[in-house]
């Protein structure tokens, strides 16, 4: 089936019930999206379906009817998205494994709520688990990204 990922169309030959996560990682070789739990409990696999942040481990290939954006499509070293820039400036990552998902979730939040309060951040981000405990810096980075995006 046809899948558009980060603006590139792919023809994928796989089961309709294969989770998008594994299509992205093992078939298309996009390793920025991470496997953490497989049951939508950790958020490490967060990507966008259209404009919406979804857990790719619980999104089945057969149900993908919109373009997919992964962390690789958001920005890359040397050409960072404002959210990624804030993540670097605030030195958020420890092990970094959950951060692709955190950033995709945060970017979706900022697209919908450009100036989120702490409560709105907590609400939007609570599905994204970080075992290292980077939450204080995630909050700070989201506020910083919001300010930077407002300033343009």
């Amino acid at each position, binding site marked *: 089936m046809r899948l558009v990922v980060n603006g590139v169309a792919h023809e994928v030959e796989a089961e309709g019930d294969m989770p998008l996560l*594994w299509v992205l990682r093992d078939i298309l070789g*996009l390793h920025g999206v991470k496997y*953490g739990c497989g049951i939508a409990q950790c958020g490490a696999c967060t990507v966008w379906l259209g404009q919406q942040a979804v857990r790719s481990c619980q999104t089945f290939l057969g149900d993908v009817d919109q373009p997919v954006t992964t962390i690789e499509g958001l920005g890359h070293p040397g050409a960072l998205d404002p959210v990624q820039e804030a993540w670097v400036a605030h030195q958020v990552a*420890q*092990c970094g494994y959950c951060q692709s998902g955190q950033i995709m979730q945060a970017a979706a939040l900022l697209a919908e709520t450009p100036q989120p309060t702490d409560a709105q951040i907590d609400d939007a981000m609570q599905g994204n688990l970080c075992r290292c405990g980077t*939450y204080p810096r995630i909050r700070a980075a989201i506020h910083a990204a919001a300010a930077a995006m407002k300033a343009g």
Partner: protein
Amino acid sequence: MGRTAKIARRSLLIGSAVAAGGIAFGYWRFVTPGPNPLQTGLAPGAATLNPYVILAPEGITVIAPRAAMGQGAQSALALLLAEEMDLDWDALRIAHGPPSDTYYNGAAAAEALPFVPADHSLLARAAREAGQVAAKFLGLQLTGGSSSIPDGFDKMRRAGAAARAVLLQAAARRTGLQLDVLKTGNSAVILPDGTRLRYVDLIPEARGITPPQDPPLKPRADWRLIGQRVPRKGIEARSTGTERYGIDMVLPGMVFATVRRNPHFGAGVLHLDTMRAASARGVKKVVPVQGGFAVIADNTWRAFQAAELVKVAWAPATYPADSAAMFAEVASSFTDDRRDSRLKHVGDVEAALSAPGAQVIAAEYRAPYLAHAPLEPMNATALLKDGVLTIWAGCQVPLYAASAAARAAGVSTDRVTLHVLPMGGSFGRRLEDDFIAQAAEVAAAIPGVPVKMTWSREEDMTHDFCRPLAMARGRGRIEKGRIVALDLAIAAPSTTASQMGRLGLPTMGPDTAIVAGAWDQPLAIPAVRVTGYRVPEMAPVSSWRSVGASLNGFFHEAFLDELLHAAGADPLHERLCMITDVPSRKVLEAVGEMSDWGAPQPDGWGRGLAFTLSFGVPVAEVVDVEPTDQGLRIRRAFVAADLGVVVDPLNAEAQMQGGLIWGLGHAMGAEITFAQGAIEQRNFDSYPFLRINQCPEIHTRALEVGDRVHGIGEPCVPPAAPALAAAIFRATGKRLRETPFSLQVGFI
């Protein structure tokens, strides 16, 4: 001979026994670096000045031979070297380098010695140094025990200074100038006229120069990287999805595998029917492995799916089958024949506690098994080709893992190469090499084909080597508003014996991990006794971020809070009266100031304080909780710690936050329980951890008081649970003596 001297003699015996006659060569020989492992496979045109530096025309690589698992040790180690070598921080690259006993960790063993961290006596120092000898002979290229920075603080700076000295000589040879007119800066030698000779352009001359053995180090006043808010290496990769963890390994022609092992630890397979799985879509092979089976397929998901189709009958567990029976075993271990240590015994505790009319308080505490559950599940990629085994994996003990893999694949150790990759967390899990050996075993079943083996989250959680469960029984006596006697008995399985047993290493003497964080606390109490009891192993156990102190910090401090409350004493002021160690006093004072201790709190809030000295680092934490309609909300937390020297302040802050959160998050809701011999929790839905909406506002302060340098990956964990318990008691009147607290109170 006093008690301390006897203990010292015993611990030194541990060192000399494993050094096996090597002592005769003299201690100093063993701590000089071994052969330079970077000489092998060095690219043409490149040069290695010592085991920590590679110069190549395209740039400079610093070898930071410790695991990158989020704790920031690699970046901080490179920073130490870069300081002395005057490297351009933004341009240098960091690599883990090859596994080698040259990179032994001399500080990792120090925590296991029976000296309190605040002991600066000659005997204590001698024993810690003997640990360096032992570590080298044990091949301990180990990342753990918050030891990377104490181990590397001198080594990395010396390596940098030695490399700089070579490059200065190289520049002198090229220019004919005297050494004393040359300077260095930003990866270059600077001539008197301002001309810059880039280090990498001096490779031809540098090759022939022998580095000095003991180059002078910069005075602290000249540091320009150490202690500065320098951005950590690797952050951009980890913010763009471009960091390549073990699980992201790709090789041409690679296949994908997963495994299932008996959830009854150590037990085998009774019956295996792989027929349906073998014919499932994408499956290449289903093969038996030690204690289970592996499915090899053309992608990970298909391997996961096919593993569900295998019919297997597991042999039963040989240890008590459920948590109730396991805790019963712990409860029955407070006996003379299971007594493991009594490292602290001051005054006549029995007499003090049994005196007529004495106000004695007694309480029993317990804590469950806990899983490490790093977010990146266990995985490894392996290729067995022409009798040569190559492995790519995250790992904290590369030399042991390589030899375990060799045994599993049936090749000799010198035919194994292990590439250590960045890790999506570890928290001690990758001190175990089970999954690496397993990948080697799977690779041996499909020779010539690279295979990436990935565990499902469920496999990971049900096959963790957990933090042990434990119980503590405390008795204390209060008199005139003060604690005059404390007796703390702790019973737990030995993590050291369990881990060393799997590595095939003998252990001797008491396991200090059973009582760490309790016996070694710098508090003066007229009569005090801490006794450790060793519970038989049951399920295998391992080191979990902050190890024994993660349990005993809770037991010791939560019980101390009970006693202080009964005494009517202020938790901060009375601790300051009891404290015997200057850095510890300073962190208590700091947390008092940061939290505005004593100021009125909002209505209904509760505030708790706890203090634990572990891994040489005194840490004091204050936690504020607010009861709400939706449950308890942790509003604020304050953390003060003394590191001696703060090498990397941005990372120290991150570790202080992360350590606190790790301690709070597990105390709030996490437990591993057993039923029918297997772990019941299979994923993060049943093993909850603190989420961003539960995360308090956190204030940290890193002090530089003590005279030794310490690591900060673990020490902020132990005080978190008791500080939270104390805060909940103040807010609700409920005394929590068991984790997870969610068994008794609700959180937002």
